[in-house]
């Protein structure tokens, strides 16, 4: 039912404030606050000499009627200015505790708007490839983001770079080789999520933020591993075709869930074992610190990957078959490649050995063999957490790239 009412009339005293000095803010604000609608009048009085000249121009531009008065002008509110908000809609809600906070599918028309903003219906659509909540969301994301921001460390101060090199030169060469390998792998760990970050609908703000911090983590890892490699040597180690082929297969995966499964759950999961192994056998304080700090960051990345995939699998069980297929596909693609750079394997043995003494090498070899088993156990555990039966988890873990990442 509609009711008619007499046109309202409201007065606004601007004093010396001109419309060229901010007075238009008060015109718009008064019309809105007083709830003036088409046909209502706002009497504007003031002392600015150009008040009526500017009032006429402003009213014309806004579609309002204008009448000059002795000490200002009268606005007759037009029909169209309020039309600006017709069709505007809330892009969910900023507060995740509310049931209407997250949409199952984020609208292209929300564009870059903050989640919870009132979005103009005329906003041009922006297509984000990752716009389905099921594909991207993890309930743990806000907590992981808070942890991640609180745990940021400064490479300049967090690492005891002034460490002495009093270990075997062969071990230092091995450290340089392993650091070279880590930089290459961390570069892949930066680029893979970066490609998906640009496709992520900003409605899923917490995911966007978490991925962004993850990229910053990887950037820092690249920095500290490079710096550690060059601490006592000028030249870096080798990069192998097999290792790069393995990483290339990660970069080539176009599906977000599959890429994050291969990278975070299987790859970075294996890297956790590797980083703690290096921490344990590190010959100096700087190596100990860089591997520990990187491992702490990587643990968060793995936790995020698991949380996201657990939720996704719970809602879309068919994803399971796609994950299995992705592991097989990657294994087949890499079947004819060497996998792990032989220089890296040897370097790991030397680091664990601490010297080139035959008995020490035997101990180092055994430690690396145990590392590979540890990586395998970690992968199986994570696969089982995602719902894979023990035997299938073991089979899938077996197919994981020999390059570790």
């Amino acid at each position, binding site marked *: 039912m509609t009711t008619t009412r007499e046109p309202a009339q409201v007065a606004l005293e601007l004093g010396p404030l*001109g*419309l*060229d*000095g901010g007075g238009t803010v008060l015109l718009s604000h008064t019309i809105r606050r007083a709830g003036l609608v088409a046909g209502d009048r706002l009497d504007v009085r003031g002392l600015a*000499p*150009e008040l009526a*000249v*500017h009032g*006429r*121009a*402003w009213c*014309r*531009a*806004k*579609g309002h009627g*204008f009448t000059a008065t002795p000490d200002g002008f009268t606005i007759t509110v*037009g*029909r*169209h*200015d309020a*039309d*600006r908000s*017709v*069709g505007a809609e809330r892009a969910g809600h900023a507060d995740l505790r509310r049931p209407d906070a997250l949409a199952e599918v984020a609208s292209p028309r929300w564009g870059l708007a903050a989640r919870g903003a009132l979005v*103009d*219906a*005329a906003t041009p659509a922006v297509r984000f490839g990752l716009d389905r909540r099921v594909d991207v969301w993890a309930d743990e994301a806000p907590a992981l983001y808070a942890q991640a921001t609180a745990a940021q460390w400064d490479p300049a101060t967090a690492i005891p770079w002034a460490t002495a090199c009093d270990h075997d030169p062969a071990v230092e060469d091995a450290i340089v080789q392993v650091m070279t390998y880590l930089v290459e792998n961390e570069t892949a760990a930066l680029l893979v999520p970066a490609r998906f970050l640009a496709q992520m609908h900003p409605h899923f703000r917490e995911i966007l933020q978490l991925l962004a911090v993850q990229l910053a983590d990887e950037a820092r890892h690249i920095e500290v591993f490079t710096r550690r490699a060059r601490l006592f040597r000028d030249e870096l180690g080798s990069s192998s075709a097999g290792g790069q082929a393995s990483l290339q297969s990660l970069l080539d995966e176009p599906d977000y869930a599959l890429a994050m499964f291969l990278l975070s759950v299987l790859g970075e999961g294996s890297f956790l074992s590797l980083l703690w192994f290096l921490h344990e056998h590190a010959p100096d304080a700087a190596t100990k610190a860089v591997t520990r700090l990187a491992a702490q960051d990587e643990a968060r990345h793995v936790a995020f990957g698991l949380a996201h995939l657990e939720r996704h699998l719970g809602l879309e069980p068919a994803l399971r078959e796609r994950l299995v297929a992705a592991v097989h596909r990657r294994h087949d693609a890499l079947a004819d490649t060497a996998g792990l750079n032989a220089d890296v394997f040897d370097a790991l043995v030397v680091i664990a050995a601490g010297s080139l003494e035959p008995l020490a090498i035997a101990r180092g070899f055994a430690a690396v063999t145990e590392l590979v088993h540890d990586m395998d156990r970690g992968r199986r555990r994570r696969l089982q957490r995602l719902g894979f039966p023990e035997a299938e988890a073991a089979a899938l873990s077996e197919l994981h790239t020999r390059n570790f990442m």
Partner: protein
Amino acid sequence: MTTDTVILGAVAYDPKVVTIWEGFREFFAAHDLAFDFVLYSNYERQVEAHVRGDMDVAWNSPLAWLQLERIAKRLGRSAQAIAMRDSDRDLTSVIVARTGEVASLADLRGKTIAVGAGDSPQATLIPLVHLQQAGLVPGRDVEVRRFDVLLGKHGDHIGGERDAARALVAGEVAAACMIDGNHLLFAREGVLPSGSTHIVAQTAAYDHCNFSVLDDLGAAPKMKRFTELLLGMSYADPTLRPLMDLEGLRAWLPGRTEGYALLEQAIDAFGTIDGFVTEIAGR
């Protein structure tokens, strides 16, 4: 024109003109009206083409409207303004001077006044006839300095007015002429620093652009449909709103021509379009 397609002529005074008319073309197409547009680089070329029959309707500046109307009259034809923007009605222009130097128009005698493009109704022709009617004949009692940005576009481009305002602030001229809305804009932008200038005179109200047709074409079914769709455009429609914002209106209104009286006085006083009208009507 004999086809069912409404052909509109418009002057490309800014790249946004393409966006606007492409957008409106989609709107008309969605309402089963075939519509297309032809862009001209200046209004004289558009008026000439209109008289020749190259278009159904022209989006005309007020000066182009008077050119078309007078040529039509010479040829025994007629012109109608079928629609205009709500923002085309009741504009005024102002003559601005530096504070403390010029108290009234009489103080401008013997001084230099900056105007916009020579063919700008709002920044040149209407302010100058206002001066003349106040007893200051341009060229005789006051010197006129023109800022001819994009001549042929009848002042649609804001550049001439902005240059005139800058010349005033720089002390190169005693006064500058501009449309009221641009005075507000320049004051807010700081081109006219607060308190440094004041308005010496304001012209009477006048109207600006319109959609013009020749003869009785406005009554043709396709043009009646065009006008009906135009007047029915709603600012509440999110597909139209950005286009209406670009074109600077909230609603289209029926055309009216009494708002061009002031500009007619100007062109009669200065003979602004006489040569062009004679040339085109004589072909």
